[in-house]
């Protein structure tokens, strides 16, 4: 594997300080250096890493070593605690509007997984909550985007509202709500075209859709493999749309997924679901504490603690 887990990184430092009674400043410095590298290799944004490291240093220096733990394990514990705290608690609830339909809007960069996740969410709402969603094809730009959503609708045997590619996305969204009311669909999920957070014209289009259909949820769909730029993307989308949550896709890959931490840190919005594959039933509730472990390669760390 390309990435060493934190445990591998800490091996030698841990050996050196085993048997000491107190964690010294120098020990902490050496260990946080390794923690920093591990987090950066996991794609956590460097500024987020900096803040974390400072907090970890403050907490770790001068701590009495607990009898049950070696100093190394203790630093790891502090790191894990801090990460878990930053990731926040589990939160996979979806809003319910007082008067149906509940409107969900999907947004994000190109290729993040919005259209697929639109299908997955619809499937989830029907299976787990007994709802009947209407899918809305508002991507009029990408070749065959409407076709893609319609195909997903067929696979799910669910209605898809589309007006082709000549219509305006704001108008499509508005008309879709009318149809949902007439047909008694209790959820409306709006698939939008992928766009760059710095594309003013297309970002404005999202604001217009938002102000005309007043969504109950606005999700940012983010590829779990995203690197340092995740903070810029999440910050822009959140500033312009006031997101209600984030969905992390492609977590079935082998990425550490540090973007999750970065996004949570800059937006403070909950990551609600995780995409775990290309199939329409591969959507799971997001588990923040598991994510923290994954970012650190914590599987290894736990065995290390057991070994020592």
């Amino acid at each position, binding site marked *: 594997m390309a990435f060493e887990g934190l445990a591998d990184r800490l091996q030698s430092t841990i050996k050196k300080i085993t048997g000491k009674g107190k964690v010294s400043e120098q020990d902490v410095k050496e260990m946080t250096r390794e923690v920093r590298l591990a987090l950066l290799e996991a*794609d956590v944004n*460097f500024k987020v890493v900096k803040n974390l490291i400072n907090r970890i240093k403050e907490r770790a220096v001068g701590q009495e070593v607990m009898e049950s733990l070696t100093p190394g394990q203790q630093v790891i514990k502090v790191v894990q605690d801090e990460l878990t705290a930053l990731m926040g608690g589990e939160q996979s609830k979806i809003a319910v509007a007082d008067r149906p339909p509940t409107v969900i809007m999907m947004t994000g960069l*190109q290729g993040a997984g919005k259209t697929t996740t639109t299908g997955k969410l619809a499937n989830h709402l029907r299976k787990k909550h007994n709802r009947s969603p209407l899918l809305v094809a508002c991507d009029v730009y990408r*070749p065959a985007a409407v076709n893609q959503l319609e195909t997903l609708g067929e696979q799910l045997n669910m209605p898809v509202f589309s007006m082709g590619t000549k219509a305006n996305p704001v108008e499509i969204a508005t008309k879709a709500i009318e149809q949902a009311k007439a047909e008694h669909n209790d959820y409306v999920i709006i698939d939008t075209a992928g766009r*760059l957070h710095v594309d003013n014209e297309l970002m404005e289009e999202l604001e217009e859709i938002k102000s005309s259909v007043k969504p109950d949820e606005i999700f940012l769909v983010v590829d779990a*493999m995203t690197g*340092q730029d995740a903070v810029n993307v999440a910050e822009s989308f959140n500033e312009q749309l006031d997101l209600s949550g984030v969905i992390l896709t492609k977590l079935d890959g*082998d*990425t550490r997924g540090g973007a999750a931490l970065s996004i949570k840190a800059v937006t403070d919005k909950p990551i609600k679901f995780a995409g775990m594959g290309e199939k329409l039933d591969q959507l799971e509730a997001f588990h923040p504490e598991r994510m923290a472990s994954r970012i650190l390669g914590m599987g290894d760390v736990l065995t290390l603690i057991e070994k020592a």
Partner: protein
Amino acid sequence: EKTRTSFSSKINNLLARYRSVDEDFFEELEDILISADVGVTTVMDLIDELKMEVKRQNIKETDKMKEVISEKLVEIYYGEDSDQIESMNIQNDELTIILVVGVNGVGKTTSIGKMAYQFKQEGKRVVLAAGDTFRAGAIEQLEEWGKRAEVDVIKQSAGSDPAAVIFDGIKAAKSRKADVLICDTAGRLQNKVNLMNELSKVNRVIEREVPGAPHEVLLVLDATTGQNALSQAKTFSEATNVSGIVLTKLDGTAKGGIVLAIRHELNIPVKYVGLGEQVGDLQEFDAHAFVYGLFADMLQE
């Protein structure tokens, strides 16, 4: 272009703020490179080499650092090679087969549409093979790009065997006397063993049908991707013989610095960059321009 300006202005700020080349200076340089997704190992190596160079040349002032930094980056990129590594392996008077691979959603199909358009503009006869038979709407998407580029698309129905589609594509390309056949494949994460095996099979069909083919296996990487791109490059290289990279979505704010690490560690060059969603938004990669471009403003002064 945005990428480069913001990157070089950061370096410029850095040079302006620090008079002397000290630990703080290197620490911030490290941050800048990390924030461009260059990758920890490559950055550490680079910083170490820079520190040595500073000692060797007895550099004390930051403005002397400009050249040293960019020289080192170019060195990392090229190693012993010349800029020949960026050019595509296109056959004269014979069919050239290009296989396009990568993880989900990076821009494979779009890049194929753009490449087809370029080749067509150059007067070449181009055929596309719709080897993604899995993702909803994938065939229709490639067909739309075929229309835009005015080239033929060979397809079967959704769900059919990708290797069979590619086989059909080769047959059609031969009988239509095409110059270039570009094969689309479904996106797949590199840790999916079955899907990677499927890709090897597609590759073998091409090898078997046309000796010397595929002439290029292009791995498409999304510039927004972080360190995982390195693992993608490694694993896709094991399944096929990746000969080059298409770095897409460079029109955003992500820097795509991971290609330096990939070149550094795996020796795979970048051949094209994607700069938008339109048919003309593909440029040949020029590493000198890319690396020097990161520091364009600095070098001009």
